[in-house]
């Protein structure tokens, strides 16, 4: 178990005009672990991810990467630290093949000519490294792939760039049972390969199947970030829907309770 988180956020605030979407959020992702980020619709999961990936600037708070404070102002900054996001609405081009999609925007060239053989080799190696054996040919158009295969390509695309932190936004939302299992296996393998993985999901079965830690957001506040083994299914659901569960959550410390925390007197009651 790594002691220092790969990415640590402290006191993140984010407002859109008068609406405060994130308040004083703390979050950590550890290398070699899958951290599940859960929360109801509108809890701020996507906003938090967009802050991490540099799409939204934050109003306050600090980022620590490998223990050192950093600033992330654009997706390019995030990519330079090895942070890759796999979005829910798969950012793949249907009319391009697997290799072309994996290298889109970052093509290998020799002179002005695209270096196709190198790209194809690197793509093959990356997919082999993830033990992906379901695609027939690397040169088939993405439109001919199944949902699970597309998700696999999207994840492989994120891994290709020696990334250190991969954030997956609802990777199994649109998939069938077998394909979900495939993708979850792949998610687990990413962490086993030493990457820090953040998995956003609504599906408690998925969360408990692969995650090492669970971070719960409730109306823009991080109500708990605990080890998966220390919490039950029912408790997570309570955290998502009510923001608290027993000693965890709101009232269980200032929204944070990595080690339980003792109940505080004042509950931030203004949340509702």
């Amino acid at each position, binding site marked *: 178990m790594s002691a220092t988180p790969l990415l640590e956020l402290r006191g993140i605030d984010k407002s859109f005009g008068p609406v405060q979407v994130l308040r004083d959020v703390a979050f950590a992702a550890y290398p070699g672990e899958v951290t599940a980020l859960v929360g109801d619709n509108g809890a701020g999961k996507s906003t938090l991810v967009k802050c991490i990936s540099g799409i939204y600037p934050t109003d306050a708070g600090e980022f620590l990467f490998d223990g050192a404070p950093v600033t992330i102002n654009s*997706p*390019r900054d995030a990519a330079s630290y090895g942070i890759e996001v796999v*979005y829910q*609405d*798969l*950012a*793949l*081009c*249907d*009319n*391009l093949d697997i290799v*072309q999609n994996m290298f*889109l*925007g*970052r*093509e290998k*060239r020799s002179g*002005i*000519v*695209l270096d196709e*053989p190198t790209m*194809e*080799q690197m793509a*093959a*190696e990356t*997919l*082999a*490294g*993830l*033990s*992906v*054996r379901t*695609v*027939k*040919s*690397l*040169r088939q*158009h993405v*439109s*001919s792939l199944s949902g699970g295969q597309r998700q696999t390509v999207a994840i492989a695309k994120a891994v290709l760039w020696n990334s250190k932190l991969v954030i997956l936004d609802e990777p199994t939302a649109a998939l069938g049972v077998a394909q979900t299992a495939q993708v979850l296996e792949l998610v687990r*393998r990413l962490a*086993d*390969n*030493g990457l820090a993985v953040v998995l956003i999901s609504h599906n408690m079965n998925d969360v408990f199947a692969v995650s090492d830690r669970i971070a719960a957001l409730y109306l823009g506040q991080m109500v708990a970030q605990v080890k998966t083994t220390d919490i039950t299914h029912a408790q997570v659901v309570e955290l998502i829907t009510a923001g608290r569960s027993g000693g965890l959550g709101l009232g269980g410390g200032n929204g944070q309770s990595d080690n339980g925390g003792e109940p505080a007197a004042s509950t931030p009651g203004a949340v509702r």
Partner: protein
Amino acid sequence: MTTTTVRQEGPASVTPPPTVGSYVRNYLARVRGGDLGSLPAVTGLLVLCLVFAIVRPVFFSAANFANLFTQGAAVTAIAMGLIFVLLLGEIDLSAGFASGVCAAILANVATVLGYPWYVAVAAALFTGMVIGLTLGVLVAKVGIPSFVVTLAGFLAFQGVVLLLMEEGTNISIRDETIIAIENRWVPPLIGWVLVAVAVGGYAAAQLLRHRNRTARGLVTDPIMVVFGRIAALAVILGIAVYVLNQERSINPLISSNKGMPIVVPILAVLLVFWTFVLSRTAYGRHLYAVGGNREAARRAGINVDKIRISAFVICSAMAAVGGIIAASRDRSVDPNTGGSNVLLYAVGAAVIGGTSLFGGKGRIIDAVLGGAVVAVIINGMGLMGYSSGVKYVLTGLVLLLAAGVDALSRRRSAATGTR
């Protein structure tokens, strides 16, 4: 890294090396799945040629064969440019009259102002790029749909041609170099040399690619298929040049009239250049990406606005090339240059060739194949002596048919998931 050591098989090495048989089967499966490629254009070309040859035997004469090239050249050049815009899922309705404006500039600079041909050609190309830049900025930055922007351009450029022509007079082209494009011929021997260079270059590129990929252990097309492609190109070019090198003049003693029109190698160079840009450069890749999924392209860090503007610039610049060719063919420019059905022919050529109106799919060779079909239609209808009413109706129907094939094959692809 525990699991990676177990299986080192890449997905590429899992599939068995393709044979000629599997290559053919894959092709047939793709066609059944709705990815028709060049099939409709080639079939249409063969059927049309057969019909016209039976009804009007003069269609198959060497002289008429040369006519096909000079008749289709301008439309083909405009269609090449349109493919860039169509790849993005946009349309440029102004391309026809943009070519007219550029031709008018050419005529004014060359004939009225008396500058040499290269100044006139540069002025025409520059005009085309300025037009494209304007259209592109209005579409990409201001956000007006390309249909509306270019429809406005269609009307406005028609007016600009009239203004440049001083209300309807026509300007004749006297510069020999410009006239030569469509009215002079490449000497037969040089024609054969050009064929040898083209086939040799294609063979070298194909074989190098094949060797390079085999050396790296990547999946390659069977070597027999590669040889087949090279042989097919050699045969087609060989026959074409042989026929074009026949004497076409009625009385060769007075004026000899043989060899391919000079416009043919010009179009061939444009075909190779733009094909290279689209399929071998990052710019081309990004163009396809924007046409396929604009949001994905944006997230991949591609400057979508820049790509969209550049496509319109290329389209209008190629329209200028088409205008120059048209001016050369007519030896003059009049207010109708680039007008009437030039645009429809060009869009038709691109779509008949296999470029999709829905974006993301198309190649430059489509313009040549589709342009050939259009040229055969124009030529054949001329030989049949149809009235212009019948010609317009038939042309409209052909365009509709091509767009219909495009839409249906797209639906079929969506159903089978092949594209």
